[in-house]
C-alpha cells in the first residue's frame, strides 16, 4: 500500500510524442482510473509505472521512492492485462505460484497463499486446470488471483474487463470494487469505458492525446467537466453542448440559445461568478446541459424551452427525446411516455447544473 506520484512524465517513440508532461499524484488506498479513448497513451503510462517501458522524461515515485531505474520485479507491483496473459502451458496453480517461486518463497507458504487467493476469488475448483480450459470470466479471475497473491504495494489493471461480455463485465466490476474495499491497496486502472471509471474510481484522470484533461473525483468530473472534451467523453448519452450567447442582468447570468423554428430560449440563473460572466457578456459561449437536467415544464416559471420533438427513444426506465437547438441535436432524458415524435413539448432546465465553456478554447468558465 502506498502513494503514487507521476511527475511530469514524458514518453516519445522517435519523434512521435505519446505522453506530454503527465503529472498525477494519488494517496494510499486510492483507486485511480485512467480514462480515455484508445491510442491516447493510457497503456503506455501504465507500462511506465510498471517499469515495462522506459521513461523519456520525468519521474515516477512509488511510496515516495523514485523508481525510474528499477526493473519491474523490484517495484513491488502486480498487473492484470486485457488479454489476461496467463501462461498457457501452466496450470492455474502454477500460474499463480510462478512469481513466488521465482522469488524463492518456500512451498508451504506458497501453498497457503495460493489457497487464500483462490478462496477469495472462489476458484479453488479451477486450480488444476490449464488456461485453455477456462471461460473468459474464469481467466479474468485467475489473472486477478495471480496479482493479489503477491500482496503488492500497487495494483495495475490494463482494461481488464474489455474482453468480457456485457453481463460478466458488470459482475466483475462489482467484484473488483469489493476486492479494493477488502484489500485497500492502491490501484491504477486503465479503461476506455466511462461507466467503469464512474463506478470504480476514487479519482479519475481523463486523457486525450497524451495529455491529462482533468484529474478529480468522478462526481466532480461528471458535474464540472474541465472542458468540452471531458464533458462529451463522460456520461451517456453525453452532455449536450449548445452554442449560445451569455447575458448578465443585475446579478443573474443567463444564456440565450436558438431553438429550431421557434423563439430563442433564455436559460437563467447559471451558477458562475459575476466577474467572469461580465467579461463574457454578449459573447458567444457553449452551454453544457446533461440530458437528465431537462424535465417537462410544470408551469411557465423558470427557464423553459418550447421545442419540436424529432425522435423519441424509449430505453425502459426513461425515454430519450431528441430535438434541435442552436443548430445541434440535443438529447433530453425524460420519464417514459411523456412526449411523442412530431409533437411540441415545453421543457424546463435545471440551471444549477448548467456549465458554460469558452467558445474558442472550449474550457469551462466559472
Amino acid at each position: 500500500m502506498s502513494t503514487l506520484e507521476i511527475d511530469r512524465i514524458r514518453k516519445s517513440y522517435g519523434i512521435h510524442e505519446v505522453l506530454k508532461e503527465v503529472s498525477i499524484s494519488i494517496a494510499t488506498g486510492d483507486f485511480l482510473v485512467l480514462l480515455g479513448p484508445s491510442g491516447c497513451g493510457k497503456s503506455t503510462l501504465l507500462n511506465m509505472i510498471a517499469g515495462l517501458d522506459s521513461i523519456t522524461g520525468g519521474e515516477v515515485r512509488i511510496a515516495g521512492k523514485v523508481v525510474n531505474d528499477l526493473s519491474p520485479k523490484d517495484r513491488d507491483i502486480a498487473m492484470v492485462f486485457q488479454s489476461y496473459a496467463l501462461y498457457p502451458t501452466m496450470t492455474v496453480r502454477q500460474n499463480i505460484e510462478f512469481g513466488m517461486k521465482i522469488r524463492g518463497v518456500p512451498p508451504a507458504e506458497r501453498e497457503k497463499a495460493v489457497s487464500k487467493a483462490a478462496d477469495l476469488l472462489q476458484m479453488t475448483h479451477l486450480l488444476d486446470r490449464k488456461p485453455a480450459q477456462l471461460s473468459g470470466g474464469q481467466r479474468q479471475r485467475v489473472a486477478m488471483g495471480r496479482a493479489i497473491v503477491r500482496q503488492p504495494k500497487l495494483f495495475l489493471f490494463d482494461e481488464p474487463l474489455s474482453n468480457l461480455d456485457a453481463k460478466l463485465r458488470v459482475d466483475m466490476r462489482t467484484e473488483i470494487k469489493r476486492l479494493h474495499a477488502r484489500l485497500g491497496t492502491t490501484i491504477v486502472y486503465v479503461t476506455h469505458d466511462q461507466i467503469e471509471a464512474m463506478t470504480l474510481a476514487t479519482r479519475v484522470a481523463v486523457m486525450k492525446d497524451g495529455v491529462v484533461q482533468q484529474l478529480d473525483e468522478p462526481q466532480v468530473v461528471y458535474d464540472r467537466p474541465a472542458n468540452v472534451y471531458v464533458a462529451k467523453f463522460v456520461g451517456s448519452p453525453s452532455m449536450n453542448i449548445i452554442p449560445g450567447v451569455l447575458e448578465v442582468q443585475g446579478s443573474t447570468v443567463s444564456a440565450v440559445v436558438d431553438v429550431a423554428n421557434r423563439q430563442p430560449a433564455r436559460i437563467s440563473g447559471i451558477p458562475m461568478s459575476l466577474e467572469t460572466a461580465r467579461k463574457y457578456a454578449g459573447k458567444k459561449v457553449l452551454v453544457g446541459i446533461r440530458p437528465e437536467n431537462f424535465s417537462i415544464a410544470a408551469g411557465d416559471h423558470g427557464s423553459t424551452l418550447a421545442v419540436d420533438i424529432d425522435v423519441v427513444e424509449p430505453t425502459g426506465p426513461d425515454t430519450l427525446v431528441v430535438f434541435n437547438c442552436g443548430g445541434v441535436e440535443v438529447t433530453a432524458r425524460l420519464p417514459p411516455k411523456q412526449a411523442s415524435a412530431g409533437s411540441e413539448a415545453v421543457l424546463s432546465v435545471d440551471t444549477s447544473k448548467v456549465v458554460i465553456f469558452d467558445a474558442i478554447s472550449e474550457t469551462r468558465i466559472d
Partner: protein
Amino acid sequence: MATKAPSHQRQQLLGRAIIYGGLLFMAAFYLMPLWVMITTSVKHLDEIYAGSFIGLPKQITFEAWQTAWSEACNGTACRGLKPYFINSLLMTIPAVLLSTGIGAINGYVITKWRFPGSNVIFGLLLFGCFLPFQAVILPMAQTLGMLGLAGTIPGLVLVHTVYGIAFTTLFFRNYFISIPDELVKAAQIDGAGFIRIFVSIILPTALPIIVVSCIWQFTQIWNDFLFGASFTAGENAPITVALNNIVNVSMGRKQYNVDMAAAMIAALPTLIVYVVAGRYFVRGLTAGAVKG
C-alpha cells in the same frame, strides 16, 4: 421443375466425376516414379533387361538393396552406401539441433525484446533464406581450409548450421510474433528475467514450431548436394554425393536395380519423416512465403 432436377443432378455428377478423374490421374503420375523405384529395386537384373519396366516383379529379391547398402562402387571404393549414410547422420543431427536452437533464441529476441535496429537485423538474416549458395562457396571453401575443417564432417556441420540460421530464425520469429507480448510483461512483473522467461514461458509453447524447424532442417541438410560435393571428397562425403557417384559409375552392365535401391535408401529417412509428420513438413514448406 420435375424434369429439370435430374438433369441438374446428372450435370453435378459429371462434374464430380471429372474432378475425381483429374485428381486420380495426377495421383497416378505422382506415384509412378516411386512405384518404379521400388519395383525396380526388388527385381533381378535379368528381368529388368528383359524389359519389365512398370510391371510387378516376378520374384522379389532384396539383393540389390544388400548390394547398394554394403557393396556398391562409387568410383573410388566399393563399400556401398552404409558409411555415407552414417556420415549424413553425423552431419545432419548436430546441424539440425544447433540451427534450431539458435533460431529459437533469435526469434525470441527479435519478437519479444525488440530494440532499435532489431528489425534491420531480421531483414539481414532473412535474405540468407534466399541466398544462392554459389555466391559464397568459394570463400567458404577458403575459410574451411583456414579453420582446418576442409573436407571434414564437422566442417559440413558448421556450414549447414550457419546457413540454416536464416530459416530457423524466420520460423521462430513468425511463431513467436503471434504470442502476446503481455505474456512476457506479466512474467517480468513476476520477477522472471530474459532466460527464465524463455525457458519457462516461451519455449514450452513452441513445441509445434520446434518440430517444424527440425523437420525442415533435417530434410534440407539430408538432401543437400552442393555443400557436400564442394567441401568433401572421398570417405567423408554425405549420402547424396555417394549416391550420385554410384549412379554415374559405369562399369560393365548397368545395375539399375542397385541404382534404385540406393536412391530409395538415400530417400528413406526424409520419406519416413514426411509420412510420420507430414503436417509439420508442409508448414515448414509454406513458411517460405514469409508471412507464413
